[in-house]
């Protein structure tokens, strides 16, 4: 019985709660039990907050009983990537340098989720400071792919995708700087939506690369994504880059056909080197869209291949500044017995950051330093303009763009750990979307012969998450991929 509960989508749980067929406390207990049983073999949670969750569940049950302020999330147990700042709950960002940090405030998205009555089961594992595509760069150990524990769950929101796939929470949130919501969603056969830059407030998510970071839902299906987006989307005075634009009710876009939609297929995303199973799954998905009434159009995004190199200048540059605040003075790790200030800084930081973060800080420092700025950073910012223009031009002829999420199915743990450049290339199809600030969704579209998930990506126009939800939903309802469960 209890596992059945955990398998259900957030929307179904919400319906059951509102029909009073089950209480939030019962649901929460079921998840707590399952996490205790299953998660040791997955490693998706960094921190569980079960006592808090049960308190929140009780409060949610009260709300439902009194029928006061009941939302589609009231009483639904979710979990958050440990990059979300949670008041009074340790927040580490997957790093040793933040071990023990107890934030004094809640971020905007977190506050909106708590206000909606969501139950917080805990904080999910991730690549340290969201830097990675395999979740192996975590100070708290790797996360394993629930579909095959020898494989990576993707990253950096690997814990979020794995926890949803393994039914260790009803839904979760991740962040996406270069693909960190969509790529693990593809790896774990979940649905992940990265909203338009500025659609959701970044206040209270720990910054990696501020001009690229966005947070968004990772869920079991498109419907849940729409419900979660309804809660977190919208302008916030605490984030100067958040967009003051009306937010539609995303559940209104849950329509089962794709009639009249023009879907662009960029030739640059089906290149040599892309895994044939991935390629054929996405091409099959394209065919499905045609059956659903969409028109397929060939488009070109000529600067695609420059997205990864531009990203690996811009993101480390911003990160090198964003991560300067971890200095051992106000919070987190502080080296023992430094004689001088410089020792305090160097020791605390060198001990606190893992190798990938350290590498990117050095790269970022380099590309911003005097004498190199123009050749690297400024040039990358200009290339960013070209990439953005590619998309704007493409969208003159289509409503959404269909691509693979990643060029291969999930890879093996350890396979790319020592070779950062190969690892970086697994984000080749997701990174351009961040550089252009566009919304993108990852929806399950198949499995490899060896049983590993494959996802498709739909890219939308600025602020047009609704079309992605509609297109994704139509595809999902016409296929069975999202219903498959890993054996655990």
């Amino acid at each position: 019985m209890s596992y059945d509960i955990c398998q259900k989508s957030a929307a179904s749980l919400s319906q059951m709660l509102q029909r009073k067929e089950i209480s939030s406390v019962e649901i929460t207990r079921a998840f707590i039990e399952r996490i205790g049983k299953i998660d040791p073999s997955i490693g998706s949670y960094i921190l569980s907050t079960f006592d808090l969750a049960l308190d929140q569940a009780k409060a949610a049950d009260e709300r439902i009983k009194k029928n006061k302020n009941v939302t589609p999330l009231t009483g639904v147990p979710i979990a958050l990537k440990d990059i979300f700042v949670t008041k009074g709950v340790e927040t580490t960002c997957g790093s040793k340098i933040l071990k023990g940090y107890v934030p004094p405030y809640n971020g905007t998205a977190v506050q909106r989720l708590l206000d909606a009555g969501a139950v917080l089961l805990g904080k999910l594992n991730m690549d340290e400071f969201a830097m990675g595509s395999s979740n192996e760069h975590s100070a708290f150990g790797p996360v394993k792919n629930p579909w095959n524990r020898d494989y990576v769950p993707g990253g950096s929101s690997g814990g979020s995708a794995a926890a949803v796939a393994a039914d260790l929470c009803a839904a979760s949130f991740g962040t996406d700087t270069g693909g960190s919501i969509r790529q693990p969603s593809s790896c774990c056969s979940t649905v992940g939506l990265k909203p338009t830059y500025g659609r959701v407030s970044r206040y209270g998510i720990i910054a990696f690369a501020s001009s690229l970071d966005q947070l968004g839902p990772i869920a079991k299906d498109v419907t849940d994504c729409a419900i979660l987006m309804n809660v977190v989307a919208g302008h916030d005075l605490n984030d100067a880059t958040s967009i003051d634009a009306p937010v539609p009710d995303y559940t209104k876009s849950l329509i089962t056909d794709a009639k009249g939609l023009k879907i662009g297929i960029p030739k640059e995303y089906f290149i040599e080197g892309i895994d044939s199973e991935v390629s054929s799954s996405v091409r099959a998905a394209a065919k499905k869209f045609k059956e659903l009434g969409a028109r397929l159009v060939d488009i070109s995004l000529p600067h695609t291949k420059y997205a990864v190199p531009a990203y690996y200048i811009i993101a480390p540059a911003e990160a090198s500044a964003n991560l300067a605040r971890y200095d051992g003075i106000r919070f987190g790790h502080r080296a023992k017995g430094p004689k001088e200030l410089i020792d305090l800084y160097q020791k605390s930081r060198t001990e606190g950051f893992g190798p990938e973060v350290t590498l990117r800080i050095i790269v970022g420092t380099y590309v911003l330093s005097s004498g190199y700025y123009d050749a690297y950073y400024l040039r990358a910012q200009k290339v960013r303009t070209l990439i953005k223009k590619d998309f704007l031009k493409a969208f003159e002829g289509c409503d959404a763009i269909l691509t693979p999420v990643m060029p291969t199915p999930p890879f093996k743990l350890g396979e790319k750990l020592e070779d950062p450049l190969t690892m970086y290339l697994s984000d080749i199809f997701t990174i351009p979307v961040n550089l252009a600030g566009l919304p993108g969704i990852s929806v399950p579209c198949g499995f490899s012969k060896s049983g590993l998930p494959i996802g498709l990506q739909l890219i939308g126009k600025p602020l047009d998450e609704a079309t992605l939800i509609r297109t994704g939903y139509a595809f999902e309802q016409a296929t069975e991929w999202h219903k498959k469960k890993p054996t655990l």
Partner: protein
Amino acid sequence: MKYETVIGLEVHAQLKTKSKMFCACPTSSNLSPNTAICPVCTGQPGTLPVVNKAAVEMAIKTGLALKSSIQEKSVFARKNYFYPDLPKGYQISQHELPLCLGGHLDGISLIRIHLEEDAGKLLHDFGHPDMSHVDFNRCGVPLIEIVSGPDMRSPEDGGEYLRKLRNILVYLDVCEGNLQEGNFRCDANISIRPEGAEKLGTRTELKNLNSFKAVEKALAYEIERQTKVLNEGGKVVQETLLWNDNTGKTESMRTKEEAHDYRYFPDPDLLPLIVEKEWIEKIKKGLPELADQKAARFVKEYGIPEYDAAILTSEKALADYYEAAISAYKEPKKISNWIMTELLRELKNDSREISSCPIAALNLAALIKIIDEGVISGKMAKEVFEDMYKSGKSPADIVAAKGMKQVTDEGAIEEAVDKVIADNPKQTGEYKTGKVALFGFFVGQVMKETKGRGNPKIINDLLRKKLG
């Protein structure tokens, strides 16, 4: 060899906003340590800055008053360096595209004015030999940095520029302008070059200049030091020097001077600051009258000499004092005279600011009024003034308490005159036979008789009449 001095000044002025530059913490300075702090200004992970509109307005006001060109688009940039008073590891400032470009102040060119955030405070006096302590209350208070061109040629030029600049900021009501309290801070770049040379010499940067005097003294010291270095065949080292007010010397900083590389780049958390023309126009309309305009008006409206007007407007508080007095008693010239002579002298002797002047403007006006009305004599007035300065009381209270009211009753004075003539028959005789120099003696005697309160004019008139 004769050298020419080249000085450029960088002023950091704290803006008088209620809240900080990027968060809603109060800017007040006298709070207990680390209480005026929030997640944003202490750089907690996940926090983001939001620009304070009033700070932008104050910077624009300053730019307009200094004839700068206000940039429609300016960009906040991160200036990266590690220091314990800088929580984020970078300061949000403006670099390539500042809010104001150019401008000038009395012949000194300005390069730029930009907005940035202040750092926290480091304290070293906790009696702990190995530790410093950090207070972030000041961290995030809005600053404008005003950078002058290398246009000053002497320490006095520098001092004058600073006083004028401070005066303008105070007039604009954008800064308290207090050097000691650190809300108006100055760093100086100084170099010397052979007279007639075009190329600038190697400069040093002077810090820790906490008063106008310190600025002038430090610059003078540094000119002497650099001259000596060059005359001895040495080279001036480009470095940052700290002024030590106690020893009267500049000191090289003991720690290794590192080549800074601030790695400025546009702050991705903040969109470009767009200042629309209408906004600038609106601010321009609301600009207060500045010192020069005020002085011109004083000359025209109150008929006082330009010299007086310049002094009276040298500080906004003084000009306000002057006009407050005029509003109570419309004798601008007399009021000006009293301020220029008596009041400013007393304040100077006392090293007091006009803002803490014990004599209220209305009381000074009242004093002048009772002189004009003949209630007290000019001589008595001096005494009353001194009393007012000491006690802060109104002239009426002082006059009443001391019974100083001038005797203007002709009957009473006539009585005294008659008595003096009667008591001094010898002198009366001599006067009448031509020894007119004795007139002063009679005036003195009558004054004595009236305890100094007799109206001098009436005494004179009566004496002349009675003595023939």
